């Protein structure tokens, strides 16, 4: 038992290290230097460059900077943002909760909607799913805003201030997830309903809906859970557009700004965080398998 846990933790740390190193290499390989990025489109003189290099110790070899970064990250110090001039932990910390709130709300909404579709409107799911998946979230967001916020005035347009402000962004993000999930669920249900146990259940006189919810659904859930855990990761990354449209605080905006301005400390912190979220979700998914499928418990 303990070795299993240790192996899991060890693998998690390895994933974090690999993700951080890959991001570091990618930024290193990007054209232009960190100094260029900090200067931006402003005045550019040798004196200004020298001061920037001095301030951020950019004159050290890349390998030394990398090792220094790893050493400090291992001690929980993620450094300071080049662009925002604040500690990275403060930059990320303030944005983490709104992002998680949105991602969880969107995942829950997506799952519930997918279940509703798959159970009550199985024949329609293909079409609905296709429409939802192929509509850009930007457009969904704008249309929802103009109907429910600008015209009807039911929900506020922006911010992370109240539950009402979470509704539209969560629906915007949740709809495409619901589309994909519903497709996966429906396929699983269709297959399960053709299995002999479904015939047996029907023979016992169960009504079709009961066969569906009590027996087939469990079989269909396994791939859907895998799908959901995958899309939760996508959700974390996909908040960028939603945040921009709804004026919400969150990690997406911070990440885009950081990547655009080669704000290395922030980018690395976001990558590490995202990798950590994936590790946690994968673990949770594995546990969920055990809950759903008794056969996996035995083996």
């Amino acid at each position, binding site marked *: 038992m303990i070795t299993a846990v240790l192996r899991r933790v060890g693998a998690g740390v390895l994933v974090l290290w690999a993700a951080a190193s890959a991001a570091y290499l990618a930024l290193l390989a990007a054209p232009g230097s960190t100094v260029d990025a900090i200067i931006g489109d402003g005045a550019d003189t040798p004196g200004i460059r020298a001061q920037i290099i001095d301030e951020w110790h950019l004159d050290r070899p890349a390998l030394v900077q990398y090792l220094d970064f790893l050493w400090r990250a291992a001690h929980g110090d993620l450094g300071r943002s080049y662009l925002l*001039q604040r500690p990275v932990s403060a930059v990320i910390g303030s944005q983490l909760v709104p992002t998680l709130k949105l991602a969880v709300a969107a995942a829950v909404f997506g799952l519930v909607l997918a279940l509703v579709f798959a159970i009550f409107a199985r024949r329609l799911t293909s079409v609905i799913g296709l429409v939802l998946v192929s509509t850009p979230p930007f457009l969904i967001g704008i249309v929802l805003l103009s109907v429910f916020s600008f015209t009807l005035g039911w929900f506020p347009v922006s*911010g992370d201030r109240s539950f009402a402000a979470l509704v539209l962004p969560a629906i915007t993000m949740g709809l495409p997830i619901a589309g994909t999930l519903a497709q996966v669920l429906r396929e699983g249900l269709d297959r399960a309903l053709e299995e002999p146990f479904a015939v047996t259940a029907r023979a016992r006189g169960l009504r079709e809906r009961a066969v569906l919810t009590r027996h087939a659904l469990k079989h269909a859930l396994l791939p859907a859970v895998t799908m959901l855990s995958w899309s939760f990761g996508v959700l974390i990354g996909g908040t960028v557009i939603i945040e921009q449209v709804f004026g919400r605080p969150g990690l997406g905006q911070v990440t885009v700004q950081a990547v655009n301005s080669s704000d290395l400390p922030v980018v690395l912190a976001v990558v590490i965080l995202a990798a950590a979220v994936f590790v946690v979700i994968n673990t949770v998914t594995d546990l969920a398998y055990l809950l759903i499928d008794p056969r996996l418990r035995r083996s």
Partner: protein
Amino acid sequence: MRRFSATILTIALLTVAGCSGGSPGSSADAGAPVSGGSLTWAVETEPITFNPHLYSQAKARLLVWNSFEALLTHDDKGGYLPWLASGYDVSQDGRTYTFTLRPGVTFSDGTKFDAAAVKTNIDQLLVPNYAPNVAAVQLKNLDRVEVKDDSTVVFQLTKPDVLILDFLSSPQGAQVSPKSLKEAKNLKAGGTELAGTGPFVLDRYTPGQEVHFAKNPAYNWAPANAGHSGPAYLDGITYRFLKESSVRVGALTSGQVQIIEGVPATDESLISANPDLSLVRGLNSGSTYSYYFNTAHAPFDDVLVRQAFREALDVPAVLNGVYRNTATRAWSVIGPTSPFYDKSLEGSYGGDAGKANQLLDQAGWSAKDAEGFRTKDGKRLTVRLVQSAPYIRDRRDVLAQAVQAAVKQSAGIDVQIQLVDQGTATKALADGEYELFDNSRADTDAGAALNLLLYSTGSINRTGYKSPELDKLLDAAIATTDQANRAETYKQVQKLVVADQALVQPLYAPQDQIAASKSVGGTGFEPTAGVPVDAYNLWLSK
């Protein structure tokens, strides 16, 4: 219902037929000023820092002046008005500037504003690694600052530089409480920790969402052109960061915010169709949005080709295509609202395709290849424009495409647009791998922009044009405080740069737009800078 579908249509990025021009609005609808209430203003840009010394975004200027103030402020004629300084005196040789400070001013943390505070601010700006841009540009001619007595401070310059006045009226020259400069944990990020003397105090900042300012009830030192005196009318103001223009407009039309800035041409019809809203536009100061020709190598090392490019481009046509009729065409490198603008350049060049083709023939680019582009010695007339994606605004990428199509059709010039990240753009510029460089600067004194863009050693001189004559003119123009004298010198600069050498293709004068509910009074644009005003003179009618 009609309005609703129109909203959807525009918002879904479909073309809406018809144009609308915003009329210069007034605050008449809001009635006489009243105190009290609070406003929400949706702005496009979240500042990367709230420390005024490190100010670098023109879009953040309207926030700075809420809580910070400078020694002087601009009037609307290119001169200066007293603010935290009650007056100033310039020595005969133009190297000693003596400021008398206004008595009785306090920072919002309770400390006193005096000559020592001014010196502390300048000393801070010169601390290595703190504000390298300010130290290297605005303060490059500063020798030392002396505190003569409590209310007198002297700036000694190494050579005459009238731009020191512009600096002392700018956000970078704003006065921050020395106590907070010393104690702030995140000095370079600014925020609630930094205290100023302004009519509001920044008391709440939610990154990615909004910033809130509360009234400073003790405030009583507004400049003469601020609209009123005493404390601000509003009890508080919230600036909400909404990047998406259609969302800002929607938030305004549905009454969730009372005022917005940044209204693109495509959304203007939604504002002007609504009787409860008003729209005003203001032209920014500084240099115009222009393409600078790289004269360091072919083809723009030949003045004939530079002239040909300007003749090939029908500027009004491309501006109308991209911005409808909302953009103001630029004729010079200096913006049309500047006192140094040379109006005589208007109509003196451009938009003559016949002439463009004749000039290109004359310059040797007479052959044409299979695709219709001009060639010389088998080489196509290709010019590259490198744009840095993070800094694109005003749909300048779309404008570039319109220019590309226009000059291809009229004169067979091949414009290659490269939309790249900042690192790639910097590299291309450093390696000279470009023929066109696009830029606009929002400096309040156009001279500051020209020094960077045109001086032979200017830090963003991308034309490669170096001329002792031009340097001499630019030096002369900042060596005197005499406005008429400066205007005359800048007229010669513009003649040389725009008319004789054709170093630049001016496109448009950058502008800001404010749309507001008619219950909001006191909106408008800052004199000279042309950016939206701070909240001091805003009021909300009851």
